[in-house]
């Protein structure tokens, strides 16, 4: 399985390099990205079969989903929005998450606690990973533009800001669906749809951060720099929900500790 993981990592890394040559490297980049996605999908499928359960219980397992979905969305949305801006960041992000998993392999056992044995498990996590991928890409584009602005003094192009915004319009509805699926599931498993569990609280904070961004954006012609900074901040809140909540003092009060390996 390490071989498949390395193939995915290598493909995305090389794809990122190929995309650096916009004209000659485009087709090679697309082929390598697809190869990496297929390798990643094969890895997830193999894990699913070998573990006998959906591989989305631990942080490491969800990182694999993210590693695969980010380049996938980057490719699909790049075609949809007719832009090449997503190509390099999405491949490098996929490669980075794959590298993290390879460097810090997690214990993946076959057990799945009763609360997770639910039809809601897969939809809830997959929708969230899709949302995180779209929102992560929007922030990555934002950070990329900010870096170009401050390091190379290049001005922020309105079409790049527009692209970031479109990615939020993809990610926020998915985030909302993930939140709602979680509420329906919580009612079935624990008797109440919302208990302000630390994980739920941070999920709400992520949702409200992007909601506030969206409402301000609708009302005002936001300055491009401010727009991009807000998106980066929004992603920081998202990371707080995904990883950070496990490190907070409130973690011991959470029933969502199954995301720990």
């Amino acid at each position, binding site marked *: 399985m390490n071989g498949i993981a390395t193939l995915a990592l290598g493909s995305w890394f090389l794809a990122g390099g190929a995309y650096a040559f916009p004209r000659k490297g485009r087709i090679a980049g697309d082929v390598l990205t697809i190869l990496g996605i297929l390798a990643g999908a094969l890895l997830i499928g193999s894990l699913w079969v070998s573990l006998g359960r959906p591989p989305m219980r631990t942080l490491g397992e969800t990182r694999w989903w993210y590693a695969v979905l980010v380049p996938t969305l980057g490719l699909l949305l790049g075609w949809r929005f007719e832009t090449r801006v997503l190509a390099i960041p999405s491949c490098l992000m996929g490669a980075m998450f794959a590298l993290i998993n390879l460097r810090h392999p997690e214990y*993946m056992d076959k057990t799945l606690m009763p609360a997770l044995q639910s039809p809601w498990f897969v939809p809830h996590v997959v929708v969230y990973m899709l949302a995180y991928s779209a929102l992560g890409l929007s922030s990555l584009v934002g950070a990329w533009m900010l870096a170009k602005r401050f390091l190379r003094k290049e001005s922020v192009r309105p079409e790049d800001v527009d692209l970031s915004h479109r990615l939020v319009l993809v990610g926020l509805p998915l985030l909302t669906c993930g939140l709602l699926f979680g509420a329906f599931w919580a*009612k*079935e498993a624990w008797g*109440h749809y919302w208990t302000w569990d630390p994980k739920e609280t941070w999920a*709400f904070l992520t949702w409200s951060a992007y909601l506030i961004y969206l409402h301000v954006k*609708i009302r005002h012609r936001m300055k491009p720099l401010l727009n991009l900074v807000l998106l980066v901040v929004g992603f920081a809140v998202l990371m707080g929900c995904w990883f950070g909540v496990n490190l907070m*003092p409130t973690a011991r009060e959470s029933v969502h500790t199954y995301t720990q390996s």
Partner: protein
Amino acid sequence: MSKPALMNPRTARPAQAAVQTPAASFWEQPLGYRHALLVGATTLGIGVLFHFQIGYRTRFSADLFAAFATVLTLGLLALGRLRRNDPVVHWVAGIPMAVVSTAMVSILALVGGVVPQSELQAHAGVPSIFGSWPFLTAAGLMQVNLILSAARRLTPWTRANVQYLLTHAGLALALFGAAYGNLGLERVRLIAGLGQPTNVAEREDGTQVQLPFQVTLRKFTMETFPPTLSLAAEDKTAKDGLKLVHGAHFAQVGMAEQIGSVEVRVDRYYPRAARLDGKWIEVPAMVTAGPAAHVVATVDGKSVDGWVSAGSLDTPSSIVELPGHRAIVMPDLRPKKFASDLEIRRNGVVEKRTIEVNKPVGFGRTSLYQISYDEQMGAASEYSVLEVVEDHGLPVVYLGLFALLAGVTMMMAQGAAAGGPSNGEDK
């Protein structure tokens, strides 16, 4: 040349100075974020005042709240329709108020997401920030904004308005249902003992409640996952001073696995075992017995063998020690499934139902949930811990959440091509 005519002092007007209008007062300026911030801060201040005057939270009649909230909602809906273009209504329903109220709720939620409840209780006398008056008043302001904004978009029935109503009115409905439900919410724990009928449950604060039905546990069943093996090593930096490297496979005869730097092979395995006179024997009939495995562990070319067991009620755990302060251990068994066969006596009628996690049992507005059991006894547990929930607001909450789900589905279907659901259109 004639002299210029002198000004008639009766009709002459003084020389006109440059026209100066007095600076508009704060509330005469176009209503926007600053005004919303002021209203938000005032709302929060009222919440803080309530906290100090009334206390953390006072028990409020759910029906009284529902009546008040319904009247308020109808009033806001009428206001939103009849005075749709009024600047104040427009502003209260608008985005500045939405942003400020959402931000207020979020900031308080952030406190709750970072500061443990025990510390909030100790330092601020607030068991939970989510039930505190400041949070409730902030959420109330957000609700007013949601209702008014939905009222202004009730007509015409364009696609954009329908999508808007589904999301905003859906959320408002869910919040209303949640508030109503929480006021009258009953969430009590019931411990059903084997063969012992009971109708007594306990609230979180320890008070006992008599339920209108009786529950008897007839049978408790539990399945566990087979055990795995782990390599334990002393590590002062790790939690409990022990670092565990876990094996991925279930222990069974013939299993061979590399766990860390140790090659582990299982040549004997008893699903139920006990230790008698220093020897491990298989005891299939002993329900409380745990598994044990005889392993051969090879490290640096040298092999060590012995029995590994997580232990049980009657038998202490057993490990195989390795050189370098390491050992092969068997972690505690993990539950795969646990279920309770219940007999529920209600209104003279007896029903037999089976309950397990993710499969609650319900009748009327009451639902029973399988929460836990006697973890020390495991499969031999003689009681089952159930949670009994009665939430009268649930239908309204679900209606609101499904409306919200429909709204975001429309949003996804529409796609990002238009740049947003109300691009360029002020709220």
